[in-house]
């Protein structure tokens, strides 16, 4: 069995990459959903929320079809960027990101919606382009929502199981994150002690993340008031 710290490090790596790469997309989606009106908005809204209501195994299966070795997008990534998702930690990160995406977007969207649009108008009359207004007024004021969204997504990534095991299997050192390792150990005779250790590590990581985000949220609120 791989050492505990290696499994924890892999889990962290997968989750951090998943959150870091999906955050810009999540912000863009949240902004579009919060501020724009266009036909088909309800479709986008539904698509974003799909992973929340679909069985994770189904999401993993769909990822396999699209991003797998023979999937059209998977082949594209392989041929153009040399990135393979199947059986690699990158694939695990994609699975985690997709599963966490609805939570992230929901929280950020609420944050953006809570920002007074009249402040954005004021920024425009002061010469700010829409982009500048977004980055200097909207997003700073939506910081609490951004923070919550990021944390929720991160926690969801750490706990991801079903989509990951379906999409990229259970490869030690590549896709065997904490939940998968715990599952594997429980299937092994006399693996229970190690599983308990890993469960403890999972719990500790969750608590640290929660505490960190609470501290950050306090700092943000202090800045805004």
């Amino acid at each position, binding site marked *: 069995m791989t050492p505990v710290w290696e499994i924890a490090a892999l889990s962290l790596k997968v989750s951090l990459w998943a959150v870091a790469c999906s955050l810009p997309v999540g912000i863009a989606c949240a902004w579009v959903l919060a501020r724009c009106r266009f036909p088909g908005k309800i479709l986008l809204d539904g698509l974003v929320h799909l992973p929340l209501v679909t069985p994770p195994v189904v999401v993993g299966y769909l990822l396999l079809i699209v991003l797998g070795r023979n999937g059209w997008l998977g082949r594209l990534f392989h041929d153009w960027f040399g990135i393979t998702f199947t059986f690699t930690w990158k694939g695990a990160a994609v699975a985690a990101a997709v599963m966490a995406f609805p939570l992230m977007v929901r929280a950020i969207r609420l944050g953006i919606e809570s920002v007074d649009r*009249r402040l954005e108008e*004021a920024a425009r009359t002061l010469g700010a382009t829409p982009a500048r207004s977004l980055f200097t007024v909207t997003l700073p004021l939506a910081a609490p929502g951004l923070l919550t969204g990021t944390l929720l997504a991160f926690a969801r990534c750490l706990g991801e199981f079903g989509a990951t095991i379906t999409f990229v299997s259970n490869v030690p050192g590549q896709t065997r994150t904490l939940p998968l390792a715990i599952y594997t150990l429980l299937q092994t005779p006399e693996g229970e002690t190690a599983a308990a250790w890993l469960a403890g590590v999972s719990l500790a990581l969750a608590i640290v993340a929660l505490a960190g985000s609470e501290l950050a949220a306090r700092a943000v609120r202090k800045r805004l*008031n």
Partner: protein
Amino acid sequence: MLKIDARRKLADFEWRVRLEIRPGITALFGQSGAGKTSLVNMVAGLLTPDEGEIAIGGTCVFSRREGVNLPPERRPVGVVFQDGRLFPHLSVRGNLQYGRRGGARSAPTLEEVVELLELEALLGRRPMSLSGGEQQRVAIGRALLTAPDVLLLDEPLAGLDGERRGEVLGFLERLKRDSDRVIVYVTHRIEEVVRLADRLVLIDRGVIRSSGELQDLLGRPELQASIGQQSAGALLRCRIEHIDDGDGLSRLSCSGHTLLLPRLDLQSGSEGVAPSSRAGRPRSQGADVVLQVRAGDVSLSLEPPRQSSVLNVMSGMVERVVQEDGALADVVVNVGQTLWARVTRRSVRELGLSTGVRVYATIKAASLYSAN
């Protein structure tokens, strides 16, 4: 020069304005819901007219026909909103420095604006910790720093109490020095109009009722009508004869009448004006002032009163009597200018007040103050 010729369908009426506004302070006056803020938003680019054109200093910023509609950030327009709209996450300094626009007009430096509006002590603070008056001063400074050709002030004093209003008014008067900028001052308070504005535009239900030099419009019935009788009463144009006529009184002439009132240069004004702003008000001999005379402070008699404590007596002719429900009536008296007197219906009956009757209007010196 700001040129507006535009239309837009609003919730309950059609907004249809044709207007040219020259540099200087123009008051846009009307009741709430008259379409004042719509004008501000259309000029600033926050609201799109259905049809028409808007041009600023020869540059077209909106034209339906030519398909021009510059976004707010590309219009040389600064806006001071009723609710300030300071950015809560930035300090006062951050708010002031937020604006940027490469216009033709050279922008004032931060130091100049800070000095003009006395913001030095506030620079490091957060908007939330400022009083309403201080917030509006910062908002004015923030707009000025973008060097706009057109400055729109949308009821900047509406959210403030009397004292704060006076304080900010004093600072707004300093904008008068800037004579080559178009400043549109939106308000529904006539006191602010007479104190700040050079010109006046009356708007009602999306239509301009009249516009012109303030002095010419003051006595006009449509203005009186839109002010409402009790809020302001009459405005009298007077000339200062003597700033100190002895006994601490100033002597003014008004359409051939003489009026005495407590020394104008010592008056703190109707709004509790901050000391710093007094210097800017015309207080010298020969200067024109506008007096505000509340209808309730005017009493009427059929003969000139003798042995009375009242110093000011103006003879005139009753123009009409506006009977109201209840015990009171408003009497419109022509004393060379229009004066409103609020009296009881019993007095109207007992004195036989009706159109054409000669009356003497008496006004206590202590109740007079200058509106500008």
